[in-house]
């Protein structure tokens, strides 16, 4: 959440009032949510999970952030646990579909469209969000300003389709995120897996909830999506005393 002296604070407050009154008429808690199955994570989100029919932004942290390789897997894992087709608006040719299948997103469910520029991604996403029955719409964007984010959020609320924006920023750009109407903003980065072994285990991510409307920000170390798109709590961290940052302590499943 931006500090109160930020010039955008009145805009955001106005927007919040606006978006909350649109759609079902009830508050965000009444909307359906998708739990992650990681207790601390779900507790931080209003409604006990990721709000469906809303816009969520996913940034990738780390020096290779502009490839957003972890962020697309996080997005794929979320969509894998929803029903229905997915519209994926591509930014470049480097997405490797077999990896999405490995986090549980079946290739039969995904329709790709080659919208190379942001100016094509945004209308395509909005078009997708107006069609009920989709599980979600993913757009790979380099930049999203307030107005497009507001349009996407309103379209998502209207149809109940979840919108995920995967940011493909240059390394320097990620520092100051722009204001947006998104329900949550995530920052995903790879984290070292279990320190003991030289063998490759399940990958780990540092998942940071940077902004969550109606919820608290936080950060967690989680094990990457499995073949059903589920995250998990690392076994070695599950019984550790509380770390300085909010690290999840109990396995959900």
């Amino acid at each position, binding site marked *: 959440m931006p500090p109160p002296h930020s010039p955008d604070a009145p805009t955001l407050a106005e927007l919040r009032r606006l978006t909350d009154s649109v759609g079902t008429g009830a508050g965000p808690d009444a909307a359906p949510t998708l739990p992650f199955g990681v207790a601390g994570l779900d507790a931080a989100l209003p409604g006990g999970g990721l709000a469906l029919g809303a816009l969520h932004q996913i940034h990738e942290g780390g020096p290779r952030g502009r*490839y957003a390789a*972890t962020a697309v897997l996080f997005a794929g894992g979320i969509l894998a646990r929803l029903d*229905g087709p997915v519209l994926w608006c591509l930014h470049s040719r*480097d997405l490797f579909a*077999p990896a999405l*299948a*490995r986090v549980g997103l079946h290739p*039969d469910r995904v329709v790709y469209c080659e919208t190379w520029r942001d100016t094509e991604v945004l209308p395509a996403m909005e078009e997708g969000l107006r069609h009920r029955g989709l599980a979600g719409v993913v757009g790979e964007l380099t930049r999203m300003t307030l107005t497009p984010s507001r349009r996407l959020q309103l379209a998502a609320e209207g149809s109940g389709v979840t919108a995920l924006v995967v940011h493909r920023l240059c390394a320097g750009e990620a520092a100051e995120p722009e204001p947006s109407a998104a329900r949550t903003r995530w920052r995903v980065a*790879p984290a070292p897996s279990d320190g003991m072994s030289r063998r490759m285990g399940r990958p780990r991510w540092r998942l940071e909830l940077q902004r969550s409307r109606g919820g608290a920000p936080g950060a967690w170390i989680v094990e990457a999506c499995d073949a059903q798109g589920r995250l998990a709590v690392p076994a070695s961290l599950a019984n550790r005393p509380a770390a300085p940052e909010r690290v999840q302590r109990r396995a959900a499943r």
Partner: protein
Amino acid sequence: MAQDGARRVLAGVDAAARRFGLYPGMSAAHAQALVPGLHLVPAAPEADAAGLERLGLWCQRYAPIVATDPPDGLLIDITGAAHLFGGEAPLLADISARLERTGIAARLALADTPGCAWGLARFGEGGIVPPGGAAQVLAPLPVAALRLGSEAQRALQDVGLTRIGGLTDKPRAALRLRFGAEVLFRLDRALGYEPEPLAALVAPESPRVALRFAEPVGARETLERVVTDLCARLVPELERRGLGARRLDLIFARVDRLDQAIRIGTARPSRDAAHLTRLLAERLALVDPGFGIEEAVLCASRVEPLAEHQETHLASHLAAGPQALDLAALIDTLLVRLGAARVYRLAPVESDLPERAVRRVPALAAPLGVVWPTDLPRPARLLAPPEPVTAMAEIPDAPPLFFVWRNTRHRIARADGPERILGEWWVTDAEADLTRDYYRVETEAGERFWLFRDGPMQANGRWWLHGLGEA
């Protein structure tokens, strides 16, 4: 073979006959003397014309405006239609491949003007002329490539003007005075200074509706209303015949007879007026009304029976919610906006090479139910082509200790491999000795990469980075 007075002459020859030195206009007796056992068929100009028209109607699969150019040519106005086939070159390749399969010899040319394409197809090599390149391409062609009458041709040849390039730099007034208006008129048409409307063929059986305007119209809002009106009129016609539109051609007849056409395709047969209106309205921005539009014709140039489709739709509709119908509408909108080649699903290919593991299928193809092998971890981003890295391993077959990519050094904490992938020699010979040893590595920061070495270390195998992230 045709009758020319008392003489029997050859009306046309095929490629084999041309090799024997036969040519149209030769007397039949002469030809038979040259080639004993020559197979002669009586000429049937009416049947030829009908055949050409049928071929022209078939060519409407490429673009709405197709005109015949008797006796043996077709002109297709592909303005605004090439993107449906992935561009101009794939469009030409598709036409020539299909014609060849049916045994029709053709030379294709694509240019800014019908005149330029005509000349290039008949007197040049065919091919694609870049926009604005007509003058340059036409320059070396004989003047006959301008579609001149024999008199004008002879007049030009008499003064030694045999190439078109020789005409373009002459003063126009002098040309007109000496050779008449025809030469300049044809030259201007070929170069695009003079418009050339095409008289579009219309298939008699395709459902069509037309609106004529008392006053020429041109405003965008008016055109949108026209589209709505036409769709509303076309739908009952489709309903009556039990058809759904797969392709709609909307032709605006301008006052200067330079017709403007837009074409939309749908992924499933449809006769939903609102949906079709929306698809057409998407492309209205491409229409240049010029000085006004007198007539609008909407034609369902490709139709499919719809009655059964609707029932199956209903069943899936009840079973799976509203998604089936909605998805088709979404896909249509995206197809119209982005072009057919840019909306697709991906399906697995049984290939070990990661570059070849994926193929495109139509967005609304039936579910295939197959996935890639689930036991092989794969990167989320695949670099194409792989980027060379400097890597260092302790012992020949061990995973590397570190690698340098784009001036950044990555120390490897964990690694797994090798997974050996061999080239598919049955696909190309070049891959006969392709061997890649893939390693999944995790750096100390936890980033995962997919590296490979393109040969054994003893044989100076180099290291490449092929992917980032891992699932």
